[in-house]
């Protein structure tokens, strides 16, 4: 067993375990922490695959940004100590059945496929190349998506503000408490 294989097993066990814990844990904050573990382990996989840039992004944006956002919102909306009621066995059973069925079908299909390994040399993944690609407007350049995502982020920001901002004087905060 090579070091790579050991690493892979380690990460994958972590990912699977914490994923399952994320979706089953009965304490919400713990779930968030498990999610963090999953995301961190995933970034480990990226490192393993030699995509350091993305791994870094994963760590900062995903693990750092989104999880923190989630934890904030948990704090806003939930009691930390609150434990969820356990799920109806029927619901979890049927869901598990469907999900496991789906997973099996998908995995079987994947295993059925013969992937042809690339014979071409791997491109070097460095910041220079990434930066160039992101600003390149020609074939295989990502300038346009880059611009579009900025619009998307602005829109999301506006959207979040529209929903979340307190109403002004003429708004209907008076109605807020009325359910």
């Amino acid at each position, binding site marked *: 067993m090579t070091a790579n294989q050991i690493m892979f097993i380690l990460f994958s066990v972590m990912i699977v375990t914490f994923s399952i814990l994320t979706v089953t844990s009965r304490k919400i904050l713990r779930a968030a922490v498990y999610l963090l573990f999953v995301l961190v382990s995933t970034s480990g996989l990226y490192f393993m695959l030699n995509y350091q840039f993305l791994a870094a992004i994963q760590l900062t944006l995903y693990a750092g940004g989104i999880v923190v956002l989630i934890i904030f919102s948990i704090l806003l909306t939930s009691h930390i100590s609150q434990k969820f009621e356990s799920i109806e066995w029927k619901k979890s059973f049927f869901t598990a059945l469907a999900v496991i069925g789906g997973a099996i079908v998908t995995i079987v*299909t994947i295993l059925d496929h013969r992937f042809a390994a690339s014979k071409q040399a791997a491109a070097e993944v460095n910041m220079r190349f990434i930066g160039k690609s992101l600003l390149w407007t020609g074939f295989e350049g990502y300038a346009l998506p880059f611009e579009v995502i900025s619009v998307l982020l602005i829109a999301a920001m506006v959207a979040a503000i529209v929903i979340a901002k307190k109403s002004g004087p003429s708004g209907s905060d008076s109605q807020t408490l009325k359910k």
Partner: protein
Amino acid sequence: MINFSYSIWLLLIPLMMFFILGLAGHKLGPRLSGLLGTSGLAIITMLSFIIAYSYFFGTPKNGEGFKAIIAYNITWLQLIDNLHIDIGVLLDPISVMMLIVVSTVSFMVHIYSLGYMKGERGYERFFAFLSLFTFSMLGLVVAPNIFQMYIFWELVGISSYLLIGFYYQKPSAVAASKKAFIVTRFADLGFLIGILILSFYTKTFDFITLTDPSGPAIAKTGGATFMGLSVITWSMIFVYMGGVGKSAMFPFHIWLPDAMEGPTPVSALIHAATMVVAGVYLVARLFPVYVMASPQALHIIAYVGAFSSLFAAVIACTQTDIKRVLAYSTMSQIGYMMLALGVSGYGGHNGLGFMASMFHLFTHAMFKALLFLGAGAIIHAVHSNFMTDMGGLRKYLPITHITFLIACLSIAGVPLFAGFFSKDEILAAAFEHNKFLFAVEYAVAGLTAFYMFRLYFSIFWGKETQYHHTPHEAPLTMTIPLIILALGAALTGFIPFNKLVTSDGLPFESHLDWGVAVPSVIIGLLGITVAWAMYSKSSNLPDRVASAFRLGYKWAYNKFYMDELYLFITKKIIFRYISEPVAWFDRHIVDGTMNAIATVTQVTSFRIRKFQSGQIQQYAFVYISGVIFLVILLVYIWR
């Protein structure tokens, strides 16, 4: 050759009269309408006589007998290249004879009605309908093809319907008219099917082609068969079914007695003299086909005729409504004519039955119209139809009495009166062909004499009845037709029918067969004597006789329960067991299915509403299941 094309006016004049009187009658007023109608008929009668004269005496014969002449013909409706409905005028001995009968009787009835119907509501309407009837009947008579005959056949049916139901506010009249139309319509169904079968095999409607011995109808006899009879025979049986209906033969006779609900002149015209003999005329018209291509059908005709005549005569003996007695008598006499046709052969002396039938048709028209008109005069005088309300009327109604007596003598076959000659020819023809039927007819002859004189004695003799107001003789407009018809009833027996109206158009020699005539006269006289004994004075003899044959009398009095049988079939079977179930089936099964489709949709819609539970996770579950399902379906099952 004489040009007969003017004969189309025979049809046009009454049609015009119908429209004028029907559309503008209420503007013209009763008096003018009546006169207009009657004068129209006068012209027609004149035309008929002219035509008859020139046909029988104006055409050169050259030993070939009378030929059928197509006097007028236009295509009315083209159906197939070789099948088309024409409207035209065919003149041959029987149609010309019928023209005389129809126009004369109709004319008489018109004149009679001027007086009889005076003051009735709907006087104009009455004359309009009479014109319609005359038009239809003449059209039927002169029809050169079987389809025209069918058309006018239907038209006389509707005229009959309208005239029977003339007193439309009287429920019994309404019911009777309806019954008459539907029963004959049912028979006409057979007629139509017969026509269709006939035309399918012969590709023609034309009478001349049909009756041509070398034509398709007769020469093709050996063709297709069905149940042992040739298709032509079947078609002729079906055609005869129409005749049975219109001529009130058993078992379609039930409408005729009820039809007496109509005004009496109508009974005289339609239900005695003209329309009801249409069946006889139809058979006579197609006689060569019957004789040569379908003898079996002819047998049926003979037996149906004989049975009907006996059956009706028996019933007639028990009825008390004078018009009903006359109606059954009519049925009986038509049975005679049918029988005569049924036992007749073709050509020369073999065709004696044919000639006798036509002869009897002619004389019967005279005396039966006379009887009905006489009865009308009586009813007019006493305001009752029942002979129990009458008696001793000879003092009050002398002219009616005499004319009525002449008619009775004539129908009873007393020598020298018209009925004697014609009936004797029939008996002679029957004697030659079928002894059994001959015996039946002898019995009928006796019964006829009995019930006619039962009628006569009960009305004019018998007990002295008290009337609300003294009966008085009818006005001139009514008595003149009586007198004219009485002349006819007395004298027409001397017309040499064997020279004029024969099965093949050629004259033949025939003599009175005394061997047949004498016994029949004796039987007739016997009947008269019995009637005289029972009814000339008021006595309890009739009741005693009736109770002696209680069961038979009861059955005969109730017309052998034929009406009840029909009622059962129509009300119970058709209405209760067919129509109502059909209506129910339609509402609940057929329509129910359609509604059920709608209901099932609604119910399904309600049942599946749980899918839309409002739960996001349930939505997502369906979503994921959908994906997995599609993957399994498309990747693994259905490739």
